[in-house]
């Protein structure tokens, strides 16, 4: 079973690189949605020996929200703003790719100092989830479009969630559900805000918000 887990973790890392290197907003949305699916698979695989109803329900809700509903919302917002791609980000795409490599190295370095007390977990798991968090943060900083920044936020949330579901599984159900709900509402409000921004400014470049 471990090799499947390693494969999923590798896919997660790959998806981050794709996210960093994609300019088309629709592709970005799709990648973030796929990431949510990969994460749910990781969560299931890493708890195969003790699978319970709670976890399955949680995973189903996650997939429904993060891989179906939220991407749909973001797609509608993107179509509404009429922007197809992020053309001139603060950090160019090839440079972003290199930065991604650097962030991956940093995540491995950091997880070197933190030992995961959970056995049976892929040892690439901690660096991979840290890498997802860093990628999200990087995208928020390096991109101009409000939609892309929301994507960065979602990637970051994905990373944190991956970490949480796989390591902190003993937390009560209600907390995890409310966390999901908070993230859901946050992205919804961001979507509404983007709608207002595009209406008010005729563009969604956050560096030019104050005209």
């Amino acid at each position: 079973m471990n090799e499947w887990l390693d494969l999923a973790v590798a896919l997660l890392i790959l998806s981050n690189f794709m996210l960093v290197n994609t300019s088309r907003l629709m592709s970005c949305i799709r990648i973030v949605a796929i990431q949510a699916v990969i994460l749910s698979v990781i969560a299931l695989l890493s708890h195969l020996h003790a699978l319970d109803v709670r976890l399955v329900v949680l995973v189903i809700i996650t997939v429904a929200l993060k891989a179906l509903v939220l991407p749909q919302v973001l797609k509608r917002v993107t179509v509404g703003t009429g922007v197809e791609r992020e053309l001139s980000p603060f950090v160019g795409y090839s440079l972003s790719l290199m930065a991604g490599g650097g962030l991956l190295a940093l995540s491995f370095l950091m997880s070197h100092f933190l030992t995961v007390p959970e056995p049976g977990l892929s040892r690439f798991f901690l660096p991979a989830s840290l890498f997802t968090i860093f990628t999200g943060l990087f995208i928020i900083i390096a991109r101009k479009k409000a939609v892309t920044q929301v994507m960065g936020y979602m990637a970051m949330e994905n990373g944190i969630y991956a970490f949480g579901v796989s390591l902190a599984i003993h937390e009560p159900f209600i907390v995890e559900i409310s966390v999901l709900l908070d993230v859901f509402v946050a992205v919804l409000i961001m979507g509404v805000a983007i709608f207002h921004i595009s209406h008010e400014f005729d563009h969604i470049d956050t560096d030019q918000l104050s005209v």
Partner: protein
Amino acid sequence: MLLWSLIVIPALAGLFCLLSRSGSLSRFMLPLVSALHFILVVCCWMTYTCPSVPPEWIGLDDAGLLFLSVTSVTFLLTSFYAFGYIRREGRAQTMDMEEGFFFKNSPDAVFVGCLLFFLSTMTLVTVSLHLGLVWVAVEATTLSSTPLIYYHRHHRSLEATWKYLLICSVGIALAMLGNFFVVVAGTGIGEHGVHLSLLSLSEHADKLNPAWLKAAFVLCLVGYGTKIGFSPLHTWMPATYSEAPSMVAALLSGALKACAFLALLRIHQVMTLAGLGATSRSLFMVLGVVSLFTAAVFIVRQTDFKKMLAFSSVEHMGILALGVGVGGTGIFGSMFHMVNHSLTKTLLFLAAGNIVHSYRSRTDLDIRGLIYSLPKTAVLWIIGALAIVGVPPFGTFLSELTILKSMVHAGRFGLAAVYLFLLGVIFAAISASVFPMVFSKRTGDSCSAAASAVTPSEEPLWSVLPLWVMAAAVLVLGFYMPPFLSDIFHGIAVSLGGL
């Protein structure tokens, strides 16, 4: 039961406002619900006994009760102001004061509904004793306050809203990671590891893995610190505070910051119990000094007086952090200062709202001769400014002195010197900006057209009375501290390992 009604009543009322879509009905709901909330909080005080074993999810301890009361009082006083404010501003087209275009405000029902949700979520922050629930509540405060900042519907406030929403959400996401780190720190203890409830964490505090716990504290410090506005993380504050309506800025500064600070105190409590108090205290001190420094740099020659108040908030959060960082009586002083700051800053923001309304400007150069045009507000503005810089008869002076004393007591003379110096700079800068606003004569030609255009305008009761209550409270706290308050400060200090 009492606690549940504190959370549920404002939330239901908020929902009712959103659904009813009736502006006038919602307007009356606001003071009504906040008065009810306040009465319930008083009931909490009546029945309060410090629990020996705290409940797992929702309950009151010393810190929770104190922060709950501060939130409730601030909200109650602001709600009377808001009642009049909304009625005056309404849905009419308003001309923008800087660029001269026309804009509308958001519908009253939506605004009031979000205000009530905001109250409900802040209450939840103060009463939850579970780190996961605290996180959920703090994030919910961000979400419910976002529409409040976008009350004036124009592009500058939209920009401020976006900044607030994105920066705070990202920050809070890091705090979530911090919570997970706490869980990892407790894996392998007992049968299922520890839960995030304070009860379970304090039972097993000595067995928590120190490396993970330290990392967790740093993440939470960054996360909640964004919300509190510690210095390198304060970037959303100036824009948000100057673009949001004054009463929203007052609530963000007076109540919300206190709530986020409470979230941080909860983690600090766990760190102290785990024997890592020294680490968290030194981090608090570093952030405190950096915040004071940033505030001192930016307050000097700040021309927008609402931004000046925002940086003053950064300063005072720095002072709170320093007090907690030094420990001992510093924690006592810090809690006392939190109460004083909430009252004073709310007073100042509301007064600033009055000034902005009648002068249509936020630049302090445009505002001259307040004492002639808005005599009541001018007096309150002076009182607030004197209190915020820590001049003797006010409570802020006493609390800042207590923190200074704790530094000297702990032998940190260098820190005390830096603290005094930065406070001095801020004192000078705020006075230099506030006194000319109030006392200099109107000179029609030399300053600007805005100054000469102002004629003595009326100041309705709602815009002055709540402010007087706050001014009186800060003044009284400078002379006399009620025993119930000092008891609770003492209790908090003991629970955080001071005294």
